[in-house]
């Protein structure tokens, strides 16, 4: 059973991302939204954790990334999706866990 996890908090000011990563199983997807998109950039400790997390798909909501001016800092291997893509992702997974 594949879970879709969403994280909406900055990894630098909250433990939410770490908690999510610790509980995400192989085959699941972690979608970064709102202030959670800061995890999707390069050059910091969180980027290393994402790089080392095998078997988990990472995605980021493009509109939230663009709003924060960080498109050029996006890490490799993180899929950018739009709102339609978000909807599709919800449908494609068995259930959604929103880490608040």
């Amino acid at each position, binding site marked *: 059973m594949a879970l879709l996890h969403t994280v909406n908090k900055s990894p*630098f000011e909250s433990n939410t991302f770490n908690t999510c990563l610790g509980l995400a199983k192989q085959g699941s997807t972690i979608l970064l939204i*709102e*202030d959670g998109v800061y995890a999707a950039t390069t050059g910091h400790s969180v980027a290393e954790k994402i790089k080392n997390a095998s078997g988990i798909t990472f995605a980021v909501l493009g*509109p939230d990334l663009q*709003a924060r001016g960080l*498109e050029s*800092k996006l890490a490799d291997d993180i899929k950018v999706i739009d709102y339609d893509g978000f909807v599709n992702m919800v449908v494609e997974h068995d259930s959604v866990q929103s880490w608040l």
Partner: protein
Amino acid sequence: MSVKKFMYINRKPPYGTVYALEALEVVLIGAAFDQDVSLAFIGDGVYELTKGQNTDAIGQKNFSPTYTALGDYDVKKLYVEKESLEERGLTLDDLQHLVWEDEDDDWAEKDSIHLVSRAEMADVLDDQDIILSF
């Protein structure tokens, strides 16, 4: 009325919460009172100053251009903590270039952003009369 040193501390990223926008509004209101105003950007607050912000797709106002107007309101001391930038994989080049015009120097444009270490930031905070936190 004597001039006091006002410091506004910015610790939240923009758009996810309303803190960053509210801080900016309060700074602009306060600028009308001719006080000695400084802004500090610490932790995720440094994200407020990134260049290239485009909020078209999230239906919120892009208030990042407003930072460029601060110089016109005599708000010309924006202290950015170096460690906070580094911990987030950012450099000064990722931030907007903010300037003010010095009327005592033939209106020369001067940098508003001062990159300071954590220790220097502690000294800046220590030097204030009033600190408002966002």
